């Protein structure tokens, strides 16, 4: 019932779930062997960055526009090209519609 059969292979989420459960059990076992003697609410659970003073919460969080900075920097040319058609002007949206329609008419009439 849960096995998805098609032409050349099968996919069974139950097998995957069993594997996940076994892995989770191993992880929990390893975790339960860990150190338990620390005290909550004392300096033992504070953040420690090599003695530097810990900045406030807003500065500890990396905001979204800095994530994957290198990726966007490397693909700058691609994104500049991509931004050009995304003008946000309604006339351009209709222009794309008419253009694609004309191309499709030509393709269908020429090919068939």
């Amino acid at each position, binding site marked *: *019932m*849960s*096995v*998805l*059969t*098609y*032409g*050349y*292979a099968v*996919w069974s*989420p*139950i097998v*995957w*779930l069993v594997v*996940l459960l076994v892995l989770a059990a191993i992880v929990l076992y390893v975790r339960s062997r860990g150190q338990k003697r620390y005290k909550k609410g004392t300096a033992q659970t504070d953040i420690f960055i090599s003695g530097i003073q810990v900045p*406030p*919460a*807003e500065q*500890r*969080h*990396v*905001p*979204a*526009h800095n*994530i*994957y900075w290198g*990726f*966007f920097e490397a693909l700058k040319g*691609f*994104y500049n090209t*991509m931004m050009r*058609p*995304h*003008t*946000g002007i*309604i006339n*351009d*949206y*209709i222009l*794309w*519609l008419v253009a*694609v*329609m004309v191309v*499709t*008419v030509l*393709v*269908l*009439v020429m*090919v*068939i």
Partner: protein
Amino acid sequence: MEYLTVHSPILIVAVPLLAAFITPLISRIGNKFRDTVNVSLLSFVTFLIVILTIDIYANGTRVYTLGASVPELALPENYMVPVRIMFQVDGISIFMGLTTTVVALAALVYSLQFVKNETGQDRFYSLFMLLYVGMIGLEFTGDMFNLFVFLEILSIAGAGLASYRVNMADAVEGGFKYIIISAVSALFVLFAIGILYSEYNLLSIAALAHSMQFTTLDLIALALLAIAFVMKLAGVPLHMWAPDTYAVAPAGITPMIYTSSAASMYALYRVTFTLYGGHFDTTAIGWVVIILGVLSMFIGVMMAIHQTDIKRLMAYHAISQSGYMLLGVGVGLAVLTDPVALANYGRDAMNGGIFHIINNALYKGMLFLTAEAIFFRIGTRDLNKMGGLGHNMKWTTIFFIIGALAISGIPPFNGFASKLLIYESVFRFNPLLSIIAMFVSLVTLASFTKVFYSAFTGPEMPAFKEVREVPRSMLIGMGIMVACIIFFSIFPGLVVDTIVAPATDALIDQASYINGVMGAVP
């Protein structure tokens, strides 16, 4: 029971229509009463859909002719062609109907709390029900003109709802863009219908398919219809309205407008497979659909990872996921005239594409709801200003993780099952397309990691110390979708065998759709 089954196609359209127009009246009694009536009427429609689904999988296509002495009587006495308005419900129609109804129910329950403090709630629920009627009608109708009428109903209701929060300037702009592109593409659809009518004097889809001659005019009509529907389903390069509209629509409405795009996708499949299938080489139009699909997947996801507005990011993902559906079904369309290839991989590709429609409506809708839950509590959609929300919004975080894993195609979620079908069967067709699809899945995971990291993780921000979990009805709305996602994840085989495979067969088997109306073809 038998009576309900026979009349369910019209009741499924009529009951929400009734709900739409009595809502302003009954809300004079009280808002609670109105909400109860709306939810119970939609639950009744869900019940009817389930009855109709069981009937259709047992007995095949069901035709409902309005004004006939017997509803199943499609051809009037002494007539060779159908002239009456009718609904024709087959496997793919009921599949789409089921998808629409699940999303609508979850969105309605979610909206109950969401619009509680807004003005104009009566109009909200009226338009909500009209949007639902538009989608269901589009999926059930058996003639081309009603296809146009229901397309316009869903466009008008959708645009009205998208700009529901008229106090925000961007909401008005998003709704305006949606109604402009809808009006233009719907007029092109009507023009194409006029071309078809001028040639055959017919409007019924089955009768038109029966007498289709594939002249040059027919091909022009096919191009107009197909591209107008691609505009409505936001395939690249006609996608630019989608982020604008999805981003500003209120919660509960964004999944509905997204599902109405899926309904337009159904219309595209209905036109290409049923109306123009048969004795016609569909390879060219199949490749058009495949190219649009690959462009949608790739450009959609590359634009998505760049966004910093959480709902625009998810809107671009909606575009990119539509690409998978177009790719899967486009491969089926391209090999439709080649029985060996169709049996080898075409049918599996189509199964994957169609399975992806319902999967995506569920998890994409759920992700939109979580995004709007964040907006509901902190009042901004800007990812740069978020952080540490997981400390206070635990359920939303869990729902978001499930949705993000499912959309990225991480096993064992349902997104993986449908994507696996698409990858493996498209690989047989053309390995390059499959590799692009896998790459897109990877970038999807990367961009949802970005959202998860910047919105939910991190230290608890002082600005968001007072943020609480969203109200219960919103959690229930998301919970309905999560329950469906988990069910679909654990039983993909059951779902594919019982509801997806009949839908695929209904698309491939054009003759049985025609026979449902015209009687046995000589």
